[in-house]
């Protein structure tokens, strides 16, 4: 994978980011409607939150709140722009940064962090006003999704001049990888949004590898779109799965090579039963033989199981399983 960095673009982005950060807090438009019970009822209903302090005036009056309050997690709801964004969205210092990234090919976006702090409950009649600070641009980073920049901003909501809630929000704006096309139906996961905002953090993938100091390099490589094979720094022997000692020369000096990403099916299975958490059956698992001389296990995806066979030529691909884990997987290629 090549790191596509335009030095001028990076400099321009950095300069813009500094200007936007220096602009400090920029107030947006106040909530279109004051905090109100009908909206609370719809939200609580949709979220399945039956707490009566949100909807039942009598129960709420008897509670510590002394009356109806809004669910704190609704804070973003009150000041969202609505479907016709232009009509109801005030400018923020983040917009220009996102626009510059969009305009230069970083069209992918995935939300990576959303941390909210609530200072008090909102009550019917409150009319919060958001104020946004641009707080960070880091990159370019190589990720399994593609090269990208992390963009961070903070929002504080005020009622009159009282801060009632705060939020840190971070997204990864990335150049979608061209070789990641295709659905993720084979592995039960979809590729990350390309161009559309993610709905939020992914549910954690249940089948996590144990990682220690002998194996971390492999998983870090996968997260950066590299298939790394351990190499003895003394005798040069390649080894997978890796381990702390070279069984050929006893050396503990290790390095790794980045594999070509080519391979072929040495053996494979099609899993049907029983159900596997995080997976949708049937799915294919193969022992893949690499031209580098080692074997590795992985899923064959983007290919009907009935078309997989021993000797089938493969090329590595990467799948983001959740916010943290990237797994190398395999797709068919022409010989």
């Amino acid at each position, binding site marked *: 994978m090549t790191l596509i960095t335009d030095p001028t673009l990076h400099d321009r982005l950095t300069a813009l980011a500094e200007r936007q950060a220096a602009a400090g807090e920029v107030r947006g438009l106040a909530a279109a409607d004051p905090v109100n019970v009908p909206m609370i009822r719809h939200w609580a209903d949709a979220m399945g939150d039956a707490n009566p302090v949100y909807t039942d005036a009598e129960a709420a009056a008897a509670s510590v709140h002394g009356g109806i309050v809004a669910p704190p997690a609704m804070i973003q709801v009150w000041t969202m722009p609505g479907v016709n964004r232009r009509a109801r969205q005030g400018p923020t210092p983040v917009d220009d940064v996102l626009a510059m990234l969009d305009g230069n090919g970083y069209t992918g976006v995935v939300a990576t962090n959303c941390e909210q702090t609530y200072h008090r409950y909102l009550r019917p009649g409150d009319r919060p006003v958001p104020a946004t600070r641009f707080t960070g641009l880091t990159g370019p980073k190589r990720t399994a999704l593609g090269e990208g920049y992390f963009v961070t901003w903070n929002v504080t909501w005020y009622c009159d001049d009282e801060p009632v809630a705060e939020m840190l929000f971070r997204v990864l704006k990335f150049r979608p990888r061209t070789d990641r096309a295709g659905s993720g139906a084979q592995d039960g996961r979809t590729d990350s949004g390309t161009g559309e905002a993610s709905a939020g953090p992914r549910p954690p993938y249940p089948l996590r590898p144990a990682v220690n100091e002998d194996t971390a390099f492999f998983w870090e490589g996968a997260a950066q779109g590299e298939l790394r094979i351990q190499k003895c720094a003394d005798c040069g022997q390649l080894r997978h*799965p890796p381990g702390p000692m070279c069984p050929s020369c006893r050396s503990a000096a290790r390095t790794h090579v980045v594999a070509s990403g080519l391979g072929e099916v040495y053996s494979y299975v099609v899993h049907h*039963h029983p159900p596997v958490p995080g997976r949708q059956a049937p799915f294919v*698992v193969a022992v893949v033989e690499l031209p580098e001389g080692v074997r590795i296990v992985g899923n064959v995806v983007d290919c009907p199981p009935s078309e997989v066979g021993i000797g089938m030529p493969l090329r590595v691909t990467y799948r983001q399983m959740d916010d943290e884990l990237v797994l190398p997987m395999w797709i068919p290629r022409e010989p």
Partner: protein
Amino acid sequence: MSSLSGRTAVAGIGATEFSKKSGRSELRLAAEAVFAALDDAGLSPADVDGMVTYTQDANQEIAVAREVGIGDLSFFSRVHYGGGAACGTVLHAAMAVATGVARTVVCYRAFNERSGRRFGQPDARLGGEPSSQGLEMSWHVPYGLMTPAAWVAMFARRYMHAYGATSEDFGRVAVAMRRHAATNPAAWFHGRPIMLEEHQASRWIVEPLHLLDCCQESDGAVALVVTSAERARDLRRSPAVIRAAAQGSGAGQMMMTSYYRDDMTGLPEMGVVGRRLWEQSGLGPSDVQAAILYDHFTPFVLTQLEELGFCGRGEARDYVADGGIEIDGRLPVNPHGGQLGEAYIHGMNGIAEAVRQIRGTSVNQVRDVRNVLVTAGTGVPTSGLVLSGG
């Protein structure tokens, strides 16, 4: 090692019923089986001074000893690697007896493997810990390769590719085991033989394995009593002399996923066991009249026939054809019905059947049995025995 041969014997065997829901604790199952084995041998709990079980067994030796009323113990040991431990428990017991560390050792395995923790169900925690085993599993579990059937299926596919074996060849093993179980009242599949067509029509579990390539899931317990051959001759039952006992692991060994060795069509660890058994016993494949081959999944029965020298590489499909491993075939394998037909007690029930064959008391008795070969779990570091009359 030759000093171990013939010095010890299995003097007693005991078991609970084999079911899908025992309705009792695993500790109670263990105690019941141990009592039965001691009664069979004509010994009392006070005679026992050693105990061996599997690392995976949930019942500590001291807990079983308390329930059964066993007093002082001078030897206790566990054997690793799942069902690969089966014959290893007898090896450990035999070594303890032969060296005078203990006089009477009980080996046992007890579990509710169907109504309790089912080994065939995916466990997301398999790859969770950075122990050596957790790290080993971590190259496979994240890809959903996490059930015993799937691990074995990966070997089976390569074996089929290399030797032209087919699913029907695997099916013939299942048919033979179910035929044997059909006439064994203790077997879960008593009275329920299958045809090859039923095997072929059974649903996929993990291709290339059908449901009927997979052993059962069972609740139950089996216990064995090991003592010196000399003493065993004075006890109630005729002894099954331990002519040879061995454990084996191969280069590049893993738990069920040794996919990184040069060849994926064999079971080198079983080759290690076989060579030791033949060498220690002074016998060869033509000297055993019956074999108990670990049958958690059918393909590895073929591989074992090859590793143990009953036939050449890739020839097992011909060996099992035409009823070759059935009760009246060239080598009766698992006359009790094995784990496919009788019950899955992690290989321990197979050792009990070998003892019955030596005694001449099996419900599916093979004629003129003098020596029986027994193996333990396949795809893992494993173990084996040769039992003889005498």
